[in-house]
């Protein structure tokens, strides 16, 4: 199993360790519910060093990123970050990812751990005709996420970057606890917060200092369990559950990352066809109306037929009910539509509700 540079610290903090896509990672420390609530009300610190990093440079770097993704990276200036996807020609997902614009000819891509090698092979394998260089940098990077309403207050005394002036989906370089880092105002929780990248071979002091300084303010270390409940309340996609190479970008209700006016890109013809003909299914949010917890892969019935399986489903620690996402036939996607989820053989009533399930109040 692969280990991040913070592995020993997780053991020391009593993290329950599990295997996650080949990595030994903490699933929880103090418990999913207290960790979840700490991020919603105070702050939480995540080791997300398993995430993948790929650097695209060269004269055609922008042209190449534009070809691989549906969002418009051409509108971005250095210092910005964008949520987008790696598309197949069918407009399904190789992965979803963040694009960091480092310079006019330099794009830093942050991809899911589960897809890291596949994504690198995909990106390195489609360069024909583009003057670009693609470098796989996952092994040299460590990444931490500091998330929650107190994130800025905790991080500011430890960095020379002016965080107050950093807008959402922007990045800057500077020192964090004396280590050279890239810090962006991004995350996977629906809260304000930062992601901290470093190539320093000994980044542990960043973690220990954040725990030490943030602890008295209510900061907790957060495992993968709460990472999943936090991202689902905010309807942030999980590859393999909500999006995959079997679901298109429009079916996933991610039309906002599709910018047709930017020109040609992989998957565009299928997107145009689906726009013209309409969708047959779409990803929607639901809540269980009856007691129970709907979990991934539970069978979903609508109008007397099995139509799908639950994509993501969990108990929401904040809303205290069972929520989830499912691809329903298009005539079942209106808010308020009732359908059934089979939980251990028992049909349980569910209802389509608006998403995100949780949206933080803007400061």
């Amino acid at each position: 199993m692969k280990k991040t540079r913070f592995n020993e610290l997780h053991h020391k903090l009593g993290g329950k360790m599990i295997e996650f896509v080949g990595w030994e990672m903490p699933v929880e420390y103090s418990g999913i519910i207290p960790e979840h609530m700490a991020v919603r009300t105070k702050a939480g610190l995540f080791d997300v060093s398993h995430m993948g990093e790929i650097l695209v440079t060269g004269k055609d770097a922008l042209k190449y990123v534009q070809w691989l993704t549906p969002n418009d990276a051409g509108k971005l200036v250095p210092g910005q970050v964008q949520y987008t996807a790696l598309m197949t020609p069918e407009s399904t997902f190789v992965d979803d990812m963040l694009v960091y614009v480092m310079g006019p000819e330099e794009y830093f891509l942050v991809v899911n751990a589960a897809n890291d090698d596949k994504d690198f092979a995909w990106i390195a394998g489609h360069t024909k005709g583009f003057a670009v260089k693609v470098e796989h940098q996952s092994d040299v990077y460590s990444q931490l996420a500091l998330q929650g309403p107190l994130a800025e207050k905790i991080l500011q005394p430890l960095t020379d970057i002016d965080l107050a002036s950093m807008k959402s989906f922007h990045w800057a370089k500077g020192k964090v606890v004396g280590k050279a880092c890239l810090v962006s105002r991004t995350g996977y929780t629906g809260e304000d917060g930062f992601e901290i990248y470093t190539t320093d071979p000994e980044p542990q002091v960043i973690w220990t200092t954040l725990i030490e300084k943030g602890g008295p303010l209510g900061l907790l270390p957060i495992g993968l369990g709460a990472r999943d409940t936090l991202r689902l309340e905010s309807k942030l996609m999980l590859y393999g559950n909500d999006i995959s190479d079997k679901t298109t970008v429009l079916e996933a209700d991610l039309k906002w990352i599709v910018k047709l006016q930017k020109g040609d890109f992989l998957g565009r013809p299928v997107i145009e066809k689906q726009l013209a003909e309409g969708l047959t299914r779409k990803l929607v949010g639901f809540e269980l109306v009856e007691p129970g917890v709907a979990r991934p892969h539970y069978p979903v019935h609508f109008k007397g037929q099995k139509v799908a399986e639950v994509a993501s489903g969990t108990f929401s620690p904040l809303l205290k009910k069972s929520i989830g996402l499912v691809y329903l036939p298009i005539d079942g996607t209106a808010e308020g539509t009732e359908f059934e989820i089979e939980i251990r053989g028992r049909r349980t009533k569910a209802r389509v509700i608006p998403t995100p399930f949780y949206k933080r109040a803007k400061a």
Partner: protein
Amino acid sequence: MYPNEFRYTKDHEWIKLEGDEAVIGITDFAQNQLGDIIYVELPAVGKELAAHQSLGVVESVKSVSDVYAPVAGVITKVNEALATTADLLNKDPHGQGWIIRIKVKDKKELDGLFTAGDYEKFLEGLEH
């Protein structure tokens, strides 16, 4: 930690004999492994259980687990409080977090279960 008057199973249930009846729950080890428990699916009173038969389901945020009957019997009472406060299983697994009461079919069946000392040794084995 593990009361001497209880017996225990490999599946981490406890059972406490009280006359002809017995109370059944899950152990402190079990609740700790499961994490925050949010929902308990309880069986119906009057249901007849064979030994090792699933008597209900415990759901934590991250997982779902069956709870098995340590011995055969007929359910005389279920812990209704768990319907609204499932986290009693985390807070007091050996007390207020009890799950069901049964009328025991054959008390001798309990002799085949772990004593507290056996169970603690069993747990030590799991951790290595």
